[in-house]
């Protein structure tokens, strides 16, 4: 006991009182205590690393067909020298695809694209959703009604179908697919922000700012929106998972990334009829999508539990 008190006294004297732990530090600690969140972070960390270093990790050019460069046929089975593949054959860890390109290299570059897809669509949706939700929650009345009814209409369509319909109008392509998925996910964020704004709009600290002469912009951005940050972070992390899945689905259907882009969904879609003859070309890209989505889902769940202690006893 004596040591404990003396320790606190010592910390106090150093200006490191035990009370000065910020919300983010607490969240961080809670996050690290959850096994599933740690697994998510580790997978995500590896993926980010792969995405950043793809050009050095990849043994081949992801876009270059190897016809005439190597003695290798199209859709060749994986050949790993360490696992007994004869050294006379060129090593292709995941085999080659229908255009005689190294599947492994394409997969590595795909990580880049997938993370980029998740981040851009969700950032787009969060920015627009936050503005709409904040306007709607802060001003109420007809503004609220108009914005929320439009959001209801967007939510009335199953998200993937709406994305498909939007891409039909805009024309297939990665950019249009991203825009479509972004538009489809706006309502979620608008609702989250609106709910947070409504819950703090009438609180004393907001009235105080108003009384002190703060203008609307100041009140919204300095006082109200920071309160919406927590649910936005959670929703955004989980939203990245959905966005990556939907983008992969669009590319699989041929509406998103176009060949020869090394995008996992389109790589899988291009070889889907070869599932019985070259299953590895279907297995690896899909598995990569699953791992990426899983890491964001685990991290999102962990963040939600860490940021909202009320839920801690449930899972």
């Amino acid at each position, binding site marked *: 006991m004596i040591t404990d008190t003396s320790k606190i006294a010592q910390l106090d004297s150093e200006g490191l009182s035990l009370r000065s732990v910020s919300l983010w530090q607490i969240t961080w600690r809670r996050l690290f205590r959850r096994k599933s969140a740690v697994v998510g972070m580790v997978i995500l960390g590896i993926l980010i690393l792969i995405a950043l270093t793809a050009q050095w990790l990849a043994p081949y050019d992801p876009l270059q067909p190897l016809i005439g460069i190597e003695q290798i046929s199209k859709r060749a089975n994986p050949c790993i020298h360490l696992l007994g593949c004869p050294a006379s054959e060129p090593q292709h860890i995941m085999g080659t695809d229908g255009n005689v390109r190294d599947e492994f290299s394409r997969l590595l570059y795909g990580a880049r694209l997938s993370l980029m897809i998740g981040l851009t669509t969700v950032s787009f949706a969060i920015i627009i959703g936050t503005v709409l939700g904040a306007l709607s929650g802060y001003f109420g009345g007809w503004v609220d009604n108009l914005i929320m009814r439009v959001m209801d*209409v967007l939510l009335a369509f199953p998200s*993937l*179908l709406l994305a498909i319909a939007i891409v039909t109008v805009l024309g297939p392509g990665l950019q249009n697919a991203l825009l479509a998925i972004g538009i489809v996910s706006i309502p979620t964020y608008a609702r989250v922000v609106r709910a947070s704004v409504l819950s703090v709009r009438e609180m004393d600290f907001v009235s105080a700012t108003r009384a002190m002469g703060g203008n609307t912009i100041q009140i919204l951005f300095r006082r109200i929106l920071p309160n919406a940050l927590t649910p936005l972070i959670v929703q955004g992390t989980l939203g990245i998972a959905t966005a990556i899945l939907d983008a992969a*689905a669009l590319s699989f*259907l041929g509406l998103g990334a176009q060949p020869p882009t090394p995008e996992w969904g389109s790589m899988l879609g291009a070889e889907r009829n070869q599932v019985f003859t070259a299953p590895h070309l279907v297995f690896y890209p*899909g598995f990569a999508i699953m791992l990426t989505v899983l890491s964001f889902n*685990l991290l999102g769940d962990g963040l939600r539990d860490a940021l909202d202690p009320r839920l801690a006893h*449930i*899972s």
Partner: protein
Amino acid sequence: MTTYILRRIVLSIPVLIGILFATFALARLIPGDPCHAMLGEKATEVVCNEFISRHGLDKPIPIQFGIYVGEIMQGDFGRSFRFSKPVTDLLMERLPITVELSFSALFLSILIGVPLGVISAVRHNSWVDVVTMVWANVGVSMPVFWLGLMLAYIFALALKGTPLQLPPSGRLSPGVLTTPFWEVWGLSLQPSGLLYTILDFLSRMNILNAVLSANWKLLTDAVTHLILPSMALGTIPMALIARMARSAMLEVLGQDYIRTARAKGLRQRVVVFKHAFRNALLPLVTVIGLSLGGLLGGAVLTETVFNLSGVGRILYDSITARDYGIVQGFTVVIAVFFVFLNLIVDVSYAYLDPRIRLD
């Protein structure tokens, strides 16, 4: 209750108008003129002039919208140039396939998801719980199309020759014929009228038709063809349902009245099913309702992978073939259907929880 339902119906009217407006705008936003977009290569000048005057495309936009809404009200969802048929007819042909697939996927996911969730809540932190949770996390992260292809590979190729071998595509094996159940019953109907439409719709669902006409060979064949697509489509809702069942049960099991029930000396089975499970049903209804939209979206992918000619498949084909009549018509119908499903979910929610309708 009636007031609640009525209010809920009135609230969905603006959404329905919004949907009509969105799909109307969709057709107008397609690059090129609507006539060429809707009729494709059949759009000659004569045909186009007729098309334009029939749909009032030479009139101002608000009037065009009015004409469009009027057409929808009369059940005219436009025509498909590829099939040279009204979209409504195509919908009646294809929708049963998607409905059958979605329902069997949902059935499978409830059948497995709910017990798994309940067991892992009751045996909190046991190996069953850990395995269920890991699997549920992986399940929601799997791309439907990948899972479908992998299942097809495993059950059609890797397990070939074993009793577990399952067909990887189509709805029936070649040679297996279907007769509509009402023909088996000896009814002869004119191919028109409401009764015919309903019976025809029902008879297109192979499993239902097989049961109603007592054709067991057809039933086995239809079921074996439906297992893999249902597994692929049902995995995400199954994982969501298992997770929700687990957390709802854990929440309820921590309540005081559960402790009271245990203190009274009630058996575990009674506590779990009578006291806890009934109260955990509410969030489950929500998650099942929310899964329905995902099922419709997933049906596009599942039907493409397993070569089933349902709504999703035809929608996908029509996009590639630029048959916008189908895209527009089907989008309206699916969205309206979805609004209707949400309405049912809300109403059942209010039925299960009196607090909501008294609000």
